[in-house]
């Protein structure tokens, strides 16, 4: 057994009196696609930011890529990629300039940068588009490119914060192809989404309600546990349970 990519033990984040994340514990193995679900305001983003070393946990501890997120943030950041729901690449730069910028930030050599650029160009069939401004490319392309740039330094874990929101179904499908490829190559994928059909693509998912993880298992087992047809049903069941506490 290799060491887990992500290991969180009773993580808590408080903002004043408000507890955004309660006792978050989970483990994600290398190469796994982990779906991190929850309604807006359930604490997903806060949890993710703690795991990325952007936010210090109030209590508990977590290790990402084997490094402590509270004390070894530098090491954590070197080993992760991050893509947010908003645009993470610069519209007024060309594709090539974006790639060069992030390659330099992650300390890739110019040779490595060249190689990665060629690789990406072939993968996307974009050889002739490298010098065009990102703003001229269609939205779906931009999201895919943002993903490529998030994994440009071949991180051990990539965090995707609602990467497919606002994208058409075909592009979403293509986007998930990329996620599968990346995971097959050994990178751990930690993804939040509010599309329940996408949850089915994950190896395991957790559903967060009011800062707490309610369920954590494979999509199939979760459906069985709740005797539901789809993840969507599970989700609404959990949401209803929250509204009428017993």
């Amino acid at each position, binding site marked *: 057994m290799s060491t887990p990519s992500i290991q969180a033990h009773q993580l808590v984040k408080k903002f004043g009196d408000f507890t955004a994340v309660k006792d978050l514990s989970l483990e994600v193995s290398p190469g796994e696609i982990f779906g991190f679900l929850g309604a807006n305001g359930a604490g997903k983003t806060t949890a993710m930011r703690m795991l*990325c*070393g*952007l*936010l*210090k946990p109030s209590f508990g501890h977590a290790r990402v890529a084997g490094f402590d997120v509270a004390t070894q943030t*530098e090491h954590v*950041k*070197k080993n*992760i990629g*991050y*893509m*947010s*729901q*908003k*645009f*993470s*690449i*610069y519209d*007024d*730069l060309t594709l090539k*300039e974006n790639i*060069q*910028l*992030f*390659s*330099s*930030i*992650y*300390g890739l050599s*110019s040779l490595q940068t060249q190689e990665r650029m060629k690789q990406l160009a072939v993968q996307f069939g974009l050889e002739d588009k490298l010098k065009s*401004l990102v703003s001229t490319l269609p939205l779906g392309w931009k999201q895919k490119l943002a993903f490529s740039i*998030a994994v440009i330094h071949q991180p051990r874990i990539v*965090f995707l914060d609602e990467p497919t929101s606002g994208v058409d179904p075909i592009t979403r499908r293509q986007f998930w192809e990329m996620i599968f490829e990346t995971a097959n190559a050994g990178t751990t994928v930690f993804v939040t989404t509010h599309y329940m059909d996408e949850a089915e693509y994950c190896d395991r998912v957790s559903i967060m309600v009011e800062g707490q993880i309610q369920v954590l298992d494979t999509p199939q087992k979760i459906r069985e546990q709740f005797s539901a047809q789809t993840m969507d049903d599970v989700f609404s069941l959990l949401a209803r349970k929250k509204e009428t506490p017993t």
Partner: protein
Amino acid sequence: MSALAAFVKKEFLHIFRDKRTLLIIFCMPIALVMIFGVVISTEIYDAKIAIVNASSEIHSQKLIEKINSSNYFKTVSYLRSSLGLEEVFRAQNIKLAILIPQNFDKDFGNGPPPTLQLIADASDLNVATTLIGNASNIIQAFAQENAPPSGAVLPFQITTRMYYNPEQRDVFMFIPGILALVLMIVSAMMTSITLVREKEFGTWRVLSSTPLPSVIIIVGKLIPYFLLSSINACLILGLAVFVFGMPIHGNPVELFLVCLLFIFTSLSLGIFISSIANTQQAAILASMVGLFLPTTFLSGFIFPIENMPVWLQPVAQIVPAKWFIEAIKRIMLKGAGLGQVLTQIYVLAGMATVLLAISIRRSRKQAT
């Protein structure tokens, strides 16, 4: 390429690809200098005047020659008496008449001093005041040149209205203010906008998830604006010296150092604004209210601080531009060295330190 170099390059690309930014950085300074220096200039050249000379002998002739040889006035009408002067005012649209009394030559240098009269078209009060000032200066100079060596008394009388501004051209007053304004806009406003833009577009979060320390991100964003501001300072000072003939009596290197310090203070202000604003709109608004208005109205740039109400004067003291303008004027016009503007230097450096400290504290708070 190091991460910092890559980041600086990226920032330059942002600037050079955005026409509006370019316009603000490079066209605005030139436009401001030209507007204040040329268009809103209160100096008037070749004003049409009439001379009424009731005396017409050697001294009065010499005085008229002196008036005509200045480039302030163009005499369009000579009269022997003030009869019909009003007609000349109306028909020839003269702005000023200089009346030399009959006893001018007779009493010149002896007897009770004769009195010259200046009559101005006060329908435009500003023009009238300026012209009277100009004429008084010329006549005053003439009186001093031609004073009899024996007498301590001037050979004739004239009341001078603009004594404090003998040869000082108003563009010299404006240049330091414009310099302060432009450096404020480019360094403080533009940097706050560019920093906030990263926050707004979500790229800040992506950047902070990279191993790049946030200090490098901020420094990388500031370097281009620091360089462009320095170029702007040279540009404005160049225009001041070569187009408007403003002197630099002090050391140009010291002058430039003070400019660099002010740019640094402005950049700190920009960082501070970006730490409190979350959208570009808010950053622009904060810059307008917090920088633009005080720099224009409270720095002594347009309105003298001494003339402000007592309660407002302390407010003027916290406007960085006030201290910068003071230092620049002293160095350029009075030839002061750095040692004589230490107070201003300490205040500007102190402001920068405090602003940076607050911004760092705020960003630390946000991270935990």
